[in-house]
């Protein structure tokens, strides 16, 4: 559609998650028409990220050293492990500032249709961390969809009897909503997860 370099840029942008063909064109034209320094800074930042950011060797979150910032922080409770599907979930939880434990990034959820089983996730690594000892609680913070539920069920089975308490994030009514607007799946989970008032 476009010539050489511009078309390559549109193609590359279009391969990014969540970027459709229209958005790819819009971003590409923005980069072409905008300040030269802005585009160069973006390009340099992408290169730098690729060169410096790796995976934490303990929790598999993103890190710029062998251990991530959370794993290096001695004030945090490393006997409390919050298991999440993706590294970006770590940052969603960090934004709450409520959690002072450590993390474990599984790298996805069980999806037999996609050939993703326990061996494709960092399950053995989690079990190894628990087996090392000193872990008093594992919080399962998978997504609240089908794959996340099944993965949490699997992990709670696997971790049963290994020592730590295994808990699941409460899932129930979304904040700020009317009760009668909630779907029945959410409502029934809210009932199952009710607590002392």
């Amino acid at each position, binding site marked *: 559609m476009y010539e050489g370099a511009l078309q390559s840029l549109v193609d590359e942008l279009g391969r990014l*998650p*969540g970027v*459709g063909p229209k958005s790819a064109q819009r971003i590409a034209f923005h980069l072409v028409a905008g300040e030269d320094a802005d585009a160069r800074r973006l390009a340099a930042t992408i290169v730098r990220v690729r060169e410096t950011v790796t995976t934490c060797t303990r929790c598999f979150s993103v890190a710029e050293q062998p251990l991530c910032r959370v794993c290096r922080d001695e004030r945090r409770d490393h006997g409390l492990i919050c298991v999440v599907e993706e590294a970006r979930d770590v940052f969603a939880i960090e934004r709450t500032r409520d959690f002072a434990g450590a993390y474990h990034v599984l790298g996805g959820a*069980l*999806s*037999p*249709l996609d*050939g993703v*089983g326990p061996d494709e996730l960092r399950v053995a690594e989690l079990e190894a961390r628990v087996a090392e000892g000193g872990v008093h609680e594992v919080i399962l913070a998978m997504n*609240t*969809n*089908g*794959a996340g*539920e*099944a*993965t949490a*069920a*699997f992990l709670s*089975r696997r971790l049963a009897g290994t020592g730590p308490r295994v808990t699941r994030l409460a899932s129930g009514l*979304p904040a700020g*909503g009317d009760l009668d*607007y*909630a*779907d*029945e*799946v*959410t409502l*029934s989970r809210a009932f199952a997860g009710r607590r002392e008032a």
Partner: protein
Amino acid sequence: MSRSYRDRGVVLRTQRLGEADRIVTLLLEGRGLTRTAAKGARRPGSRIGARLEPFAVVDVELHRGRTFEVVRQVETVEANAALRADDRLWAAASVLAEVVLHVAVEGERDHGLQRLLRAGLAALATAPAEPDVFVDAFLLRAASAVGFPVRTGSCARCDAPGPHAHLSVVGGGTLCGDCAGEGTQRVGAGVVAAVRTLADDGAWQALPGLAREAGPDRVRAGSYARAYAEHHLDRRLRSYDAVERPGPGSPEVRE
């Protein structure tokens, strides 16, 4: 003519789409295999998202879109929540979905397949102790639904009345001594009986009994069911390996 319509069916698969949307593939009563876009389905609190989870039976209102049908509304008919609350049932139900995704045709209604899938999921949702036997049964029944019924009463090649002791995947079931080739395996009557129970449409309630009693015969019948479905449906079922099996069984029936 309105571009919106209603249909009922089963959620087979969900995949991420864009920032917060999902592609939801359904087997619908009216339109067969249908790919839909569920906008905002990944946002917590999305009613559409909560209802369009794999293996749920739903009533949907769809709007004709360019690439996908767009989901307007969803009502739950059967949540089948048990199939997501246990990873063993999740794996078992995934095999059913994989088979249907492979054999169902876009835009074509298939009453037999719809009925079989709903019955299979409902049976699994009772959380049987041996979900693998339901998977094996579904494989033979699905093969039958699309034109490859396994024969266990007579010879699959020459119709000679049985029972016969040779069991062939390629041959389509039991074979008489004359029709059986060199490599066709001889099996005990228990294996043939187990294959018959697996393939017998309608008798889901007989399956837990089969799992408990038939031991190695059932394991052997199960591996036959897999080989049979993979051969006749021409597809390696990758989700099958995620289904837990009873301990090391007898040698597989393959040919």
